[in-house]
């Protein structure tokens, strides 16, 4: 039993190791992508100053900080979804997916490895993005509890990874359109989760979807922790909901992926084409 578990853990580490190699090999792409993300985030965060400059009366420091948090979480979520969805698409393109799928590693371990790397990489990028963009503004966040914010993000990541696994199945079912459909799902989730605006400005039906989105609770918790210094114990309701969504979405994601894998093997969709 221990041997089997050890082999699975080595496999999980193998997925992380592979992505580490790839990140190193594509380091210039990584840098270019990071610069693009910084620029993109700046265009959003400057909106607060723009409103003030055009005569609006807002708490610029608070709105700027709130937009920054939203943009960073958006970028983080994008990375989680992209890694999980594109790993299948990318592996099919390289032709390695057949070798990955004929290895004795359990699919749960494989997906856990993918999620672990996505979270690790996403977290590093999120912290760097937050720090670099914050340098452009004279932001004051005296009560910020960054540790609590990171704990909330990590707890939420289980749910994000679960939903990411659900979208990761799409390139298995539709090699040509699957990855793009994953982006659609990601966009729909984020638009209802209050990334740049409070959820209660949304139409009622969208608020219902927001209530089921883990990003809603993650954003609320992280903003409370950074802007108002709310501690972990006070964020227990948000954390509980996130844990609940994670406990449901992660197994469902794995089951959906397993079903997608069976479909792909039934219809011969694993093979690289083109």
């Amino acid at each position, binding site marked *: 039993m221990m041997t089997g578990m050890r082999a699975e853990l080595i*496999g999980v580490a193998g997925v992380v190791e592979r992505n580490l190699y*790839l990140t190193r090999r*594509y380091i210039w792409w990584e840098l270019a992508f990071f610069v693009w993300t910084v620029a993109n985030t700046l265009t959003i965060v400057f909106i607060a100053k723009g409103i003030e400059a055009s005569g609006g009366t807002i708490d610029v420091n608070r709105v700027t900080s709130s937009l920054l948090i939203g943009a960073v979480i958006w970028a983080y979520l994008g990375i989680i979804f992209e890694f999980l969805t594109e790993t299948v698409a990318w592996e099919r393109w390289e032709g390695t997916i057949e*070798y990955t799928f004929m290895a004795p590693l359990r699919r749960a371990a494989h997906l856990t490895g993918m999620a672990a790397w996505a979270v690790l990489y996403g977290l590093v990028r999120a912290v760097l993005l937050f720090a670099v963009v914050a340098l452009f503004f004279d932001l004051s966040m005296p009560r910020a509890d960054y540790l609590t914010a990171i704990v909330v993000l990590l707890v939420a990541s289980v749910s994000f990874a679960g939903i990411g696994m659900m979208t990761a199945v799409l390139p298995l079912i539709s090699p040509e359109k699957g990855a793009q459909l994953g982006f659609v799902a990601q966009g729909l989730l984020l638009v209802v989760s209050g990334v740049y605006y409070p959820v209660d400005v949304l139409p009622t039906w969208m608020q219902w979807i927001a209530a089921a989105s883990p990003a809603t609770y993650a954003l609320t918790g992280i903003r409370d922790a950074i802007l108002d210094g709310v501690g972990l114990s006070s964020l227990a309701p948000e954390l509980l909901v996130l844990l609940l969504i994670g406990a449901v979405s992660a197994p469902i994601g794995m089951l959906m992926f397993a079903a997608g894998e069976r479909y792909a093997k039934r219809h*011969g969709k694993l*093979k690289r084409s083109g």
Partner: protein
Amino acid sequence: MPEPLHVLDPLASRSGTTLAVDVAGLRKVFRRKAPRGAPGPRRRLVAALDGVSFTMARGETVAILGQNGSGKSTLVRLLSTLLLPDGGSAYVFGHDVNRSPRAVRRLVNRVSVEASFFKKMSAVENLSYAARFYGMPPAATRGEIPRILGRVGFPANRRSEPMENLSRGMQQKVALARALLTAPVLLLLDEPTTGLDPRSKLEVQEFIKEIRREHDATILLCTHDLAEAEALADRVGIIDRGRLLRLEPADPLKAHYRAHTLEQAFFAATGRTFADDTEDELETELGAGVDSDPDDERGLFA
């Protein structure tokens, strides 16, 4: 609960051994798009494998000869659990490929015509992560990867170069190393020398001979190359349009068709020569733009 071992061969049962491969009535059907304007339904069912049956003893090397689209790669993919069968059964050392895929995966590895790797990563990096998927820790691969790369004749000074900088022959050596790294007892070689220059081809063939001599591996070799089949295999099979027509040692096979060469035997068995149109027959029949085609083998039948 462990699945009971499946033994069909009465000889193997009596001797208390398990067959390495035991395939009975194996079927695989694909749906493919018909060409634009063609009469009939838009999609047709095409049998890639149509009731294939054969067995392999442990340590045996069997070569399967067939044209593009004949079903060779589908057979390899079914045995390596990359496809699910639509009928019949396939067992690898007593494990059902359909019901116990993980048990089969521990025993099998494969080298295909496309040496598929992460092209930006080096040979060592590709082998390292692949080994982890088989539960091999860094302590085990640190020494083993250079050793096995050395054995396949891969130059030590190129181990850290991205795969995209390597020739096809070099890449295929790394593919062989990847397969051997996990010590498979069943090695599935799907056109391992197709597209290689003569020297690389010879080196790969020599290495396959070495595996035969020095390892307890059973080898299923799917190939276009008649000389390769005759030189490497204990038995040679002819597969055509998804049906295994004959499987026996090369000499009896030639004798059966009253042929002097395997080429003549192949012609007698299939009614086609090697100079015939090499295009995948099924694709020619159904047109381009087919659905994901798991038997879209590359290279020419020559």
